[in-house]
Structure formats: structure tokens, C-alpha cells
């Protein structure tokens, strides 16, 4: 243990602790900007500087380790002056038009500057702009970038994708797409983790709320909205609603107030996905000689982009089942349109997803199987949904709970856990056992698939045969497992992949909390919802059963193939620059 004093308070911490963490143990919260624990401790912004007796210079507290007898001041006159100057310098190169910024009120720079009471601009304003392709789902605004390097580090260290890099040196240092590529020609998976870890509005999703408002204003459109499982874990965070208030029912009520004709649940199509994907797995297992294993889940578009760009020769191992978002769109514009007797071309299908890559997925050229128009017209992130609710001055905590509409609004407990790592696997296993044996397993028979570990594995018996399963989340872990599979070090029949660490609950489209990881607590809520569900098996969803009877007949049938499955080779994905090295 090391003893020191911080702001005259005695502190005792483990050797190797940073001054920043040591200060926190005595309730001193030194402001930071670039700091991201364990990922970006590089002392770049210099906001966390402190004065240490006997040292010539101020030191960054985020990456300076404590020493025995150190005397630290976090608010000495020198520190106060320097911290202020540092923030003023950052502000001089930052587009401070906060009123029109998506992160206003949730911007770490704004908070730090406001907290310091900086009320004037000391230095000449020098804001640099750069072009960015407007059609890309992910938007970088150079004028707001403070070069904290968090996006670079998240993409390097957690996602192992290396899309962002420092470009140029000296005063012209900038963050841009690595290897002098444009974002469109890069292998960016659009996971959005850089967005949720950006302290300012320099990174955000493409805003599609205007297109949704346009459709809502069009009397000829029947507006249908689906809400992904993970959205219900985070939609109310903006209003700080407690768990009792932040129910899916209240979320439905808020969305209905926006004016949608039908408010449906992606849980419905998650159950449908299990029917198709589970049947596909069993079918592939029956033809071991024909198919390569493992079969991979395909519901995460970030992961699909990853596999197609990093290991394109393995694309055939993806389940051909569409993601729940896309299955929902296809069903809405076929089965549902028929059912309510309208022209599917008049249906405007919106999804709310915890995800930025879903914006890409719904725009894949071939995803138009129902009527020729895109099956899903617009995919919004959870953040965009929150903005729509705020814009209509709706106060959710005053709303009465409502219910999803029928028939595409029902979902089982198996569907709701799609939003957390291991959930798709667990749901698939529950139904696979039933489909293979005719008997339900215990819904809690697969505990190894739960929890926040980045790489989980277990072998289960399905109809007397061992089924080797693995679950990974985060693309860094994903690369590790795929490489291990390729080297023959591990063998599985079925692998679930989610691009974001912890799964969709921690998705790149979710509300942002200063880089704080939320996947675990949000995922825990989904597990609770599952436990409380009356139905916990996808094959028991009565609306799904009815739809098969009335429309699809059976999983993997002719209609299913046309509407619920896709060819992952039908579109081009830019290749990873690493492929050149491998070849």
C-alpha cells in the first residue's frame, strides 16, 4: 500500500494506482475528458492535471501512479489556472454551437467547460471543417472532434478493427479513417462503439427522424413501428425514470403518442427468427458433410459486415435467416398487409434499434422481398426515438401503460433476451431441443451462456447428440474466436456473435453515459423480463404459431425462403486491409 495526501486528505491505496483513482477513494472527482478507464489513459487532454509537491510540471492524474509520500493538489492556483487554459484552448478549436448539437446536455466538454465557469473565449476561434459522406450511417464532424483518441482506442483495443487513426502531425493532426481511406471504402462494421464513447458530438448516427416525421405526416401511409428488445432497457434513461416506471408498456404509450398506426414488437420476429434459425441449425446438423461448422448467428449486422470483410471465405457459415428487424419488415409488408387488406407499398415500416449498423442493414439492396420496396424503410437508433419523444414534448412518466398491437406485437421471454449476449443462443437452444425431441428443456438449462464474459462456451446434449456452442461479444473477441476456429484450436457446431461488447444492450445506438459501460445492467433487465414471462419458448408464441398455420406453413418452407432468408453474398462489402497481408 502507498500512502499519500491529496488536497490535504490522507489516502492509502494499492501500489500502481493512478492519482485519479486514488482521489476518487476520498471523494475527490478530478475532471477528465480523454480518459476512458483501461482503454484510454494517455494523458492527452490535460484536463485532469494535478500539482505534485516537488515536481516541476503539473502531471496528468489519469496516468501517473501514486508514490509514497506524494503530496498532491487537485485545485491549487496553478492547477486552476492551467486547467482553465487547457479547456479554453480545446474550446478554441471546437464548434461551440451547442444549441444545434445532438450531444448538448450530454457533452463531456460542455460539462467540463460549464463546471469551470468559462464564460468567454480567450483564444482566436479556429474551427476546421471537413466533408463527410452524408449517406453513411455513421457521421464524423471534424469541427467537434477534440482529438481525445477514444474512438481510435475503442476501435483498436476493444473492437480490433483499426478503422480510425491519427492523421497528419503537428498543428494539423486529425482523426480520420485509417490508411487514407474514405469511410465508405473502409471495412467499418458500423458497430457505433466509437459513437457511444465519444465525449462530444464529433461522432453520431445519421439522423433519420425527419424521414419518419415525413411519413407520419403523409395521410396515405400506414406507419408501422417495431421496437427491438434492447431498446426497452434504455429508452427512459434520458428522463431518469426508475425501473417501475420505465416499463415497455410506458414506452409503447410514448411511441403511440408520436402518431404511429401500429406499434409492434421486434420480439415477435425474434421468436420467428428462432423458428427459422433453429430449424436451419438442425437441418445443417443433419447434413454434416455438406455444411461447414460452426453455423454462425446472423442477427447482428455489424458482425455480418465483420465476417464478410475480414473472413469472406466463411460467409457461407452464417445462418441464412434474416435478422429479426428484417424478418419483421418482410412479414409486415406481406402477411400483415394481406391481413389488414392494404397495398404493402403504402406501409411505411420503421424500426427502433439499439444499433447503428441496422441503418445499413435495412438499406441492403436485396432486402426488399415483400413488395419490391425496402422491407424496413427506416431504422432509428434508441437515441433518435428519444429525440422524437422529446420533440413532441411528451413526458413519459405521466403516461399510462399501453400494449403492443396485435398480431406482430407478441413476444416470449426467449425473444426479449435477444438484446443481451448469449440470449440468441439460449433462445435457439430452448427451441432446438424442442424441435429435435418434441419436449421442452428447462428454460434455465443453459446458464453457461449467460453473463458478461466476452467468450463463453459449453456443450449441450440435443436429442442425445452433443452440441458444442460458443457465444462471443465484442469484435476483438470475435476475431479471436474466428481465428481459433480457423486454426482448428476450437470446434463448435453453433456460435452466437454480437459485435458490441455485452450485446445489443450495450449497442452503438443506445443512449450515451460518458463512456460508461451499460450492457451489464441493461442486459440484467432483459433477463428479468424473460424470467417474468409466461411464455419462455419461441415455439410457443401463439401469434407466430398462427402465422405459420395461416401463411408460412412450416419453417424453411418455400415462403420462408423467399421472405425470411437472405443471401449474404448478394452484396459487396469492402475487404479488410489485413486480407492482403494474409494472402
Amino acid at each position, binding site marked *: 500500500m502507498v500512502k499519500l495526501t491529496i488536497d490535504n486528505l490522507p489516502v492509502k491505496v494499492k501500489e500502481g494506482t493512478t492519482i485519479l483513482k486514488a482521489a476518487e477513494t476520498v471523494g475527490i472527482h478530478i475532471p477528465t475528458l480523454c480518459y476512458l478507464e483501461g482503454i484510454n489513459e494517455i494523458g*492527452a487532454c490535460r484536463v485532469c492535471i494535478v500539482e505534485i509537491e516537488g*515536481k516541476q*510540471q503539473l502531471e496528468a492524474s489519469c496516468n501517473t501512479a501514486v508514490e509514497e509520500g506524494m503530496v498532491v493538489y487537485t485545485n491549487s492556483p496553478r492547477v486552476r489556472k492551467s486547467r482553465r487554459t487547457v479547456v479554453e484552448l480545446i474550446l478554441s478549436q471546437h464548434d461551440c454551437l451547442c444549441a444545434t448539437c445532438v450531444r448538448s446536455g450530454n457533452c463531456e466538454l460542455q460539462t467540463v467547460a460549464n463546471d469551470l465557469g468559462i464564460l468567454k473565449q480567450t483564444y482566436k476561434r479556429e474551427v476546421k471543417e471537413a466533408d463527410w459522406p452524408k449517406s453513411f450511417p455513421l457521421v464524423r464532424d471534424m469541427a467537434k472532434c477534440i482529438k481525445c483518441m477514444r474512438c481510435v482506442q475503442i476501435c483498436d483495443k476493444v473492437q480490433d478493427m483499426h478503422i480510425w487513426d491519427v492523421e497528419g*502531425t503537428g498543428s494539423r493532426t486529425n482523426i480520420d479513417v485509417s490508411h*487514407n481511406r474514405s469511410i465508405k471504402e473502409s471495412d467499418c462494421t458500423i458497430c457505433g462503439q466509437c459513437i457511444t464513447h465519444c465525449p462530444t458530438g464529433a461522432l453520431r448516427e445519421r439522423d433519420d427522424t425527419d424521414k419518419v416525421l415525413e411519413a407520419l405526416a403523409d395521410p396515405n401511409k400506414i406507419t408501422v413501428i417495431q421496437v427491438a428488445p434492447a431498446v426497452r432497457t434504455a429508452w427512459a434513461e434520458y428522463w431518469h425514470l426508475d425501473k417501475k416506471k420505465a416499463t415497455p408498456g410506458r414506452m409503447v404509450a410514448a411511441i403511440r403518442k408520436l402518431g404511429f398506426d401500429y406499434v409492434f414488437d421486434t420480439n415477435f420476429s425474434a421468436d420467428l427468427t428462432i423458428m427459422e434459425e433453429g430449424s436451419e441449425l438442425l437441418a445443417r446438423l443433419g447434413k454434416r458433410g455438406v455444411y461447414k461448422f460452426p453455423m454462425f448467428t446472423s442477427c447482428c449486422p455489424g458482425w455480418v459486415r465483420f465476417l464478410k470483410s475480414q473472413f469472406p471465405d466463411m460467409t457461407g457459415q452464417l445462418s441464412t435467416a434474416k435478422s429479426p428487424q428484417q424478418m419483421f419488415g418482410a412479414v409486415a409488408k406481406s402477411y400483415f398487409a394481406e391481413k389488414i387488406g392494404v397495398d404493402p407499398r403504402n406501409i411505411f415500416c420503421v424500426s427502433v434499434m439499439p444499433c447503428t449498423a441496422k441503418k445499413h442493414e435495412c438499406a441492403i439492396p436485396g432486402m426488399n422481398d415483400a413488395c419490391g420496396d425496402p422491407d424496413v424503410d427506416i431504422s432509428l437508433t434508441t437515441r433518435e426515438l428519444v429525440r422524437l419523444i422529446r420533440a413532441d414534448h411528451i413526458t413519459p412518466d405521466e403516461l399510462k401503460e399501453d400494449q403492443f398491437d396485435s398480431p406482430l406485437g407478441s413476444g416470449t421471454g426467449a425473444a426479449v433476451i435477444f438484446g443481451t449476449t448469449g440470449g440468441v443462443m439460449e433462445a435457439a437452444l430452448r427451441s432446438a431441443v424442442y424441435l429435435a425431441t418434441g419436449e421442452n428443456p428447462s428454460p434455465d438449462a443453459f446458464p453457461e451462456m449467460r453473463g458478461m464474459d466476452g467468450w463463453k462456451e459449453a456443450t449441450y446434449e440435443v436429442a442425445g447428440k452433443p452440441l458444442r456452442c460458443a457465444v462471443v461479444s465484442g469484435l476483438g473477441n470475435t476475431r479471436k474466436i474466428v481465428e481459433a476456429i480457423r486454426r482448428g484450436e476450437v470446434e463448435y457446431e453453433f456460435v452466437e456473435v454480437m459485435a458490441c461488447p455485452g450485446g445489443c444492450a450495450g449497442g452503438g445506438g443506445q443512449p450515451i453515459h460518458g463512456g460508461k459501460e451499460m450492457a451489464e445492467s441493461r442486459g440484467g433487465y432483459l433477463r428479468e423480463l424473460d424470467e417474468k414471462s409466461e411464455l419462455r419458448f419461441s415455439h410457443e408464441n401463439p401469434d407466430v404459431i398462427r402465422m405459420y398455420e395461416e401463411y408460412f406453413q412450416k419453417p424453411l418452407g418455400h415462403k420462408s425462403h423467399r421472405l425470411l432468408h437472405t443471401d449474404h453474398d448478394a452484396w459487396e462489402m469492402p475487404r479488410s486491409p489485413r486480407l492482403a497481408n494474409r494472402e
Partner: protein
Amino acid sequence: MSRLSIITPSQAQTTVESLYKDLERRIIASPPGLCPVDMAASFLKLCHAQTCGKCTPCRIGLAQLGNLLDDVLSGNADMDTLQLIEDTAQTIYDTADCAIGYEAANMVLKGVHGFRDDYIEHIQHNRCTATLNQPVPCVSQCPAHVDIPGYIALVNEGRYDDAVRLIRQDNPFVTTCAFICEHPCENRCRRNMLDDSVNIRGIKRFAADHISNDYVPALAEPTGKKVAVIGGGPGGLSAAYYLSIMGHKVTVFEQRDKLGGMLRYGIPSYRLPRERLDDEIKHILSTGIEVKTNISIGKDLPISKIQKQYDAIYIAIGAHIDKKIGIEGEDSNNVISAVEMLRAIGDGNYPDFKGKNIVVIGGGNVAMDVVRSSVRLGAEKVTCVYRRRQEDMTALEEEVEGAIAEGVVMATLKAPVRIEADENGNAVALWVKPQIISKVKGGRPSPANSKMDEERIPADLIIVSIGQGIESHEFEKAGIPVKRGNFEAMDLGGVGVSEGLFAGGDCVTGPATVIRAIAAGKVAAANIDEYLGFKHTIAHDVEIPEPKMRNQEPCGRVEMHERDPFERKCDFSCIEDGMTEEEMLQETSRCLRCDHYGYGVFKGGRLREW
């Protein structure tokens, strides 16, 4: 009012003078990977500040040139701008009245030609081609990329064994390099920005001299693969060491009696004590390397046979053939080559030069080894004949100074013309043509014949030391491509003729430094491992101390001590003494820890494995 006065500099002038010195040191410590156009624009700004303002091209031209460069950097330029930059610079070069103007323009012109690609990238994409791949200056300059800040911190804490373990992750020849490395790591040391580079080699020497207990590295599971290494020098043994750790069965073929290559047969023991070299080789072999000495590949054993018996081959035969000077009388008796002499010494056969007048031709490090060995062998007089000036010698400055201190005469600006022999064919003198230093060619002043008469330098023995080549003949016959006397190996050390054949070190690059041969061996090990279908990593578990109090007060650099020249010139014992502990503590505390401060903490500061 006095008629004349002595100018005493004002405080402002004195301060500016000291700032010039700061800038000089700062340029030395310029990190690699900066934006070249930004640097050109910044240099131009400095040049413009030097302008007196009298003439148009310099006063206005350099300013406008600066504006154009800023346009390029700000993304406001097109290809016409680049043409305008070139035309304007050319005009300033052609019209400026003095060097302040025309040399400033020349710097811009050099850039426009030298890094045109980067100009174009800025113009077309508003981006730069430069990247800071390895931001720690010493690590980036070390060919083997040894974790220098890491081991300096360990030595500072007295953890010498850990320091050596850390170095061995990238370079198994710790002791050898502690004695004789050319230390490119020190060239761009950021400490130059304060005072002077850290004496990195000296710190390594301290670690190497204070290991308490050596260890055998952990070996990977045997792979069952066999690798032949041809040549037991630093490059071959480095490759063998890492391949052995990776679990491959390695056999080293050495054509001489003992291992070590140039470390034994080129470098005299007063620079690298033999017992220390033997210890180091023993450590390397402790990884289970098989050694076959006195086998000349090609002559004693055909290459094709090795190819059949081994899964991969690393050719690291070095450059051991002496080059001929090509003057009349060179084949007289008593004319020998540096290689011949140093090889004999390496095998323990010390010739007797007592009372002899020795003339050595050449100005490289090997020539210095020869003159200084000659002094130690009892020569009456040793003269080093060189075509250029002393400062043009390619030998390290400290080597040249050491030789002079030991009594060697530097006969510079003398071009050998012919060797005079007596009736028995024994050389008796070297005739030289005095030179005048002349035009700069390829960045280096070249010599030209002066009008002075030829001179005669009497000699009992003439030793030619003007460089080495490689013994490529047998390998060439086996189909290995040779270009300008060296093996042609691809970037990654592979040779394109047949599968599993790799080459590196002096035999590929031509005579270079020990650390480059070691680096080539390390690279070869990784590539051979991958070629054999593995991906072993070489890693360490040494915990590196966090940086302590920054020592930012300017402080002189500790130099190593050398034994008294009068004493040391009489024997072959080591001439250099290591630092004292007190000196080591001061010198290690001068390290600025670029692995932690600056870009190093963000990216590329430390590779824990390769």
C-alpha cells in the same frame, strides 16, 4: 567616443545564440514520421526570419512561398498550386542575391521533388502520408526494436537480470552490444531537446556486467521441424536462438573453428573480451542449438543436401572476403588484408609486429581495428592512409580518436597509387598521391588529386582494409540470386528461388553493423516460423517500472572511461571500463520515458511480444 570598439553581445543576442543551440539539438531529436510538407513549411518560416529584407526574391518570395505551402496544408490548393510552388522556388533560387535566399528556396525544391507524393496527398485528399508508427525514438532507431526505456528503468531499479531478460526478447547479444553496438538508438534520443542523448550503450553495459544469475529461456513444445542456419555469426545465432525458443530443431553450420563470425574474426578482444563473447554464445546455445563447425557449405556439403534434410534454411554467411584495392604491386609479399589478419587473431594466432613499420589503407571501423591491433602487436610505427579527411572517415569518431591516442599516425588526403617492392618481391613502401578535398558528391565531400608530388611512405607490412564482400559463388551455383555482390532477399528476408530459403545480414545488405545482423536474424526467425506453419510469439513477463520523478534539469551525459592509452596499447584486454553505480543512477534518471510521456502511452510505446 572611441574610434574602434569591441562588440560585446547584448543579452538578447546571447539568448538567441542559446536558442540556436536548443534548436540544433531539437532537430537532432526530431521524431521520425512527421508530416514532411509541414516540416518544409516550418523550415521555410525559419529561413524567412533569417532574411535581411534587402532583396525581392527573399523578402517577398519566401513569404509567398510560405503562403502557398500553407494552402497545400490547409486543403486550399490544387495541382496548379504545386506547379506554382515549384516555379516560384526555382525563381527564388535563380534570382536571390545570397545563400539565405537561394538555399531556402533550394530546401523547398528538394521537398517538392523528394516528397511529391505527400504534396499530392495533401492537395487531393487534404491528408498526409506520414504516420508515427514507432513513436519512441530510441526504439524506432534500433533495428531490433529493443525496449530501451523499459530496460533503462529496470537498470535504474537495480533489476539487472530483468533488464537483460527484456533485452533478450529482441536481441540475444546483450553483452556483445553492450560493448560494441554502434548505438543508433542514441541518435534521435529526445533527451537531446534538453541537453544530450542518454548513454544507452553504457547503461546496457552496466546491466550486462551485473547479471547475478543467468537463466535458460523457456522453450515452446518441440515442433518436429528442422532448420539449418548457415553461418554462426550474430545474425545466424540470433535466428537460431529465437527459432529454438519457438520449438524448432536448429543446426548451425559454421565454416570456421569457432562460432561468433565477425564478433570473433573481425572485432579485436580489446573491444569485445573473448570470455564475454564465449559466455554469450554459451547462453544462446543453451536453448538446444546443434552446432557443426569447420563445415563449409557448398564445398564440404552441397546446399541441395541441406535442402533435403531441413524444412527451412537461413543463410547468414556475412561478408568475409576482402576487397582488392587494385593498384600496382598489390600482390607483393608483405601485403595482407584486414580480414586475413583479424581472422588469425580470432583463432588466437597473434602475429609479431615487433619493430615493424605498418601501413594500413582505409578509414573504416575495420581499419581502426587493424591499426589498433597492430600497435598492440608491438609495431614500431603504424600509419593509417586515407584518401579523404579525418572527419570523413566512416569509422566512429571515438575509434579514430582512440587510435590517435595510442600513437597511430593519420595520413589523410593521401590516395594509394602503387606499392613498391624490393628485388625479392617484398613490399617496402606505399606511394601515395596527395589529395585536395573537393566537391560534395552524394552528400559527402570527395577527394581530388592535388598538384603536389607523389609521396613515399616506407612500410614493412601493408594491410589493406577497404571493405569486404561475400563468398557467394557456391550459393549462386545453387540458384540463389546475387545482385551487386550481395544476395537478393525479398523485404521479409525470404529468397525467391525456392521454398523455405531465407537470407539476411551482411550477405544481403553488404557489410553493416552487428545490430542490423541481429535484427535480420530476429525477422528471419519470425518469418521462418510462419513459413513452417506456426505463429509462436516471443514474449516476456517482466514488469516495467512506472516512471518516477521526471529529471528535467539539464545535465551532462556520462561517458564511459577508457584505460590509459599508454597502458592499454600494450595488451589486448578491454579498453573500456563501465560506468560506476553513481554514474549509472544519474544516467538512467536522464531517460525521459518516451514510452510513457507523449505518443508512446497512446500507441506503439511497447510491444510485449512479437
